[in-house]
């Protein structure tokens, strides 16, 4: 059959059996695909997308706003890749979804919210359409130096730079890194978007431009090591930037904190509290970092870490990935992934929900309000937990 649409992995799309293992975590306790959980149609599941993409490639379906919504509602959480039972092609699932979106970008038929996101990043350098000059405002008064020859570049990203909750987390982490005596500098208003979401949403041209711009800048400044606030930035720096000769040593702040605490710094007085931890998809499933944030929490005397029913590689996504943080294609309501996840956190009986990603922070903090549970639980970032224990 002649193909109407081409993607790089077109030859394996037909191999999905649509068995549905991809919808679940390892032990099947609940649906673990955020978009399937939110919408309830098989078309919004990974297997559904695979079958629809095949029909679309073959011309049995055309590009419609609804098909675009189905593709862009994917939170890119990688649960499907983790749970698919077909070892010979499971690793390509996220790439296939991304390639299909890239084809839609080429056609110019993406959802308006996605188009607006691309335009904002292309024109303003950030999805918030805010001036570049305001990018470093989050750090005002902290005393964080502009990067010159420090050991680490502390890269904050768009959410940490512009979003209110993200800024709070950026300040919390930045201050702690300084307090730990880490040699760290920031780019402030010279920082650019890392492009992770641009890539996932299929704008490969814009992503290439962003990646190249960042690599040139980092190299010109002599950056060798990067510590990121946002696991999304960590992901693209580690996994994509080497293709652009961006070979930096990239760590998430939780890894740096965990190592410092293991070395005995800072000395923590303790915090008697019950907390639960939400694994960010780009920290956990995408990059295999599960232990570092837990090592940080477990180093706090008096703190009791209670795991959610779904954790580590089985963690349920907050629904912010794949650009949904900005486009909100997954939508709200009681089946919204963030609210489902928040309820799971509440089920642990913990008083505190600790996050390690500014996007998860915002999603879950909003969910806390939507559920009306601000009196029962508080969402804080990992660095704030350390600060409260100090």
């Amino acid at each position, binding site marked *: 059959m002649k193909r109407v649409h081409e993607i790089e992995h077109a030859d394996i799309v037909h*191999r999905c059996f649509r*068995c549905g293992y991809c919808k679940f975590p390892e032990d099947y306790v609940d649906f673990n695909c955020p978009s399937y959980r939110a919408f309830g*149609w098989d078309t919004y599941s990974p297997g559904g997308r695979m079958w629809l993409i095949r029909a679309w490639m073959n011309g049995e379906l055309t590009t419609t706003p609804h098909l675009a919504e189905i593709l862009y509602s994917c939170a890119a959480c990688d649960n499907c890749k983790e749970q698919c039972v077909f070892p010979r*092609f499971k690793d390509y699932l996220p790439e296939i979804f991304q390639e299909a979106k890239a084809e839609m970008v080429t056609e110019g038929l993406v959802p308006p919210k996605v188009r607006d996101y691309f335009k904002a990043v292309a024109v303003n350098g950030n999805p918030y359409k805010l001036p570049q000059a305001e990018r470093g405002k989050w750090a005002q008064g902290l005393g964080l130096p502009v990067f010159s020859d420090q050991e680490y570049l502390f890269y904050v990203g768009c959410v940490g730079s512009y979003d209110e909750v993200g800024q709070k987390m950026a300040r919390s982490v930045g201050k702690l890194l300084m307090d730990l005596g880490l040699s760290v500098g920031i780019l402030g208003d010279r920082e650019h978007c890392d492009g992770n979401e641009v890539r996932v949403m299929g704008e490969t041209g814009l992503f290439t431009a962003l990646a190249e711009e960042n690599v040139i800048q980092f190299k010109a400044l002599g950056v060798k090591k990067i510590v990121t606030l946002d696991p999304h930035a960590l992901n693209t720096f580690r996994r994509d930037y080497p293709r652009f000769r961006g070979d930096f040593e990239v760590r998430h702040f939780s890894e740096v904190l965990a190592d410092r605490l293991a070395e005995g710094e800072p000395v923590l007085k303790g915090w008697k509290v019950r907390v639960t931890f939400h694994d960010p998809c780009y920290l956990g499933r995408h990059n295999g970092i599960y232990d570092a944030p837990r090592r940080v929490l477990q180093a706090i005397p008096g703190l009791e870490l209670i795991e959610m029913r779904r954790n580590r590689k089985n963690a349920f996504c907050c629904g912010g990935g794949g650009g949904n943080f900005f486009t909100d294609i997954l939508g709200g309501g009681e089946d919204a992934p963030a609210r489902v996840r928040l309820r799971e956190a509440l089920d642990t009986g913990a008083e505190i929900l600790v996050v390690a990603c500014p996007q998860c922070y915002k999603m879950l903090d909003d969910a806390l309000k939507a559920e009306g549970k601000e009196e029962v639980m508080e969402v804080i970032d990992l660095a704030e937990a350390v600060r409260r224990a100090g």
Partner: protein
Amino acid sequence: MEHIYRSLVAIVGERGVSNRPEELWYYSRDPGVLEPHRPDFVVTPKTTEQVRDIVLLARKEKIPLVPMGNGMALTGLVIPLKGGIVLDMKRMNRILEVNEMGRYAVVEGGTSQGMLKAYLKDHHPRLRHSLPDAPPTTTIAANVSLHGQGRLTQQYGFNSDMVTGLEVVLPTGEVCLIGSPSLGPYWFSKGPTLPDLSGLFLGWLGTTGIITKVGLKLYPNKKFRDVELFVTDRVELVPSILYKLTHLEMLEDINVWFQPRPLLFKDNYHITLYFTGDTVEEVEFKRHMVWDALQEFMESKDGGFMALDYLKDTLLEMPQRGVAAFADVPRGGGFEYSGPITLIEHYPAYAAKVVELAHKYDVLYASSARLISGGHSMMFSISFAFNRADPAMMGRVKAALDEATAFALDMGGIPWKPNHFEQRLTLERLNPNTRELMRRIKMCLDPDGIMNPGNWEVNEYETSA
């Protein structure tokens, strides 16, 4: 049709109904080899009341209704052969009750096998249900409605035998309770000592009503579970081996399988034996009993136990993920099987037929039989994998399966979850008075013929009684 759409939206809300090309395309097919057929609408009800309102609407509009679980029967039972409304039941997935002492669960009609397994593990670790090896997204209601099987079928019968009560929306819109829940709050018996009305719905493939709640027997979840693999290259001995094993009345499950790939399995018949116990001693005692039962076959060098080191985790997995993975052996995303219910003594004839059909149609085979109720019968699966991008291969698989079903009927077997073609073959051979009884039941329950039409079309046969 627009007024039907608006009515459906009024029942399930905007997000619960679709007539968009993407959903209509997807829900027009299943993963098997049958031709697709488009529905007019797809809905995802969340409550029994919504299902009832949809049924009443369909009855008024004379539009077909097709209830669907995960669509993994593979035999087109959820393909809307005459269009209409597909009801994706998976949003009705609450586990409503587990009676620990009574050893039963009550679940909604779209509850998946996987979710019940996980729920029991978390909240009632002493209990388990008869989990099929189908993917965990498959639903309990769909499984019992087609007389499915599971890990405990060897001990306790078809999974439909484990039903302890039903809530069904009849094709005329009444919500009907079946069994003990029709008299009181408990779900412990689907029939006895009342007339067993569950038979009006189990095995009818969604043609007599929509199951919205299921009561299901639970069984002791033993602390230890182990497996042995007995292998013989003499197919004619398989029935006697199985007879000796079932005589022990000790085994959780018995599967017999053979396949040409990988090569280490070729030309051998593998009997997987599962046994459980609450102590190591109990497990070891059962293992000894199994070995003793099969001693004569080992002494004659007709069989032996296979070392299991690298296979053990796979065999003990529930459900076995490798079952779905068979679909990718020809790098093509599909397989389908005919699974007639037959006698153990017929195993060699069926096994020969599988190989014959695979050669005749040039397709890749695998076969796995499961014993039912201590060996009173078995499900013999004749599975063929195919490449979904190769329509000719899919056609050959379909032809092979059609021939397999005809063979099973010739052998006195009963097709399991038959597709509409196999149903027709079956009805043609059915005792005329039995067929007439089925027709009367169908006419009585579904006078408008709206339930999953194209399946169990008994109305097409002249009255002969």
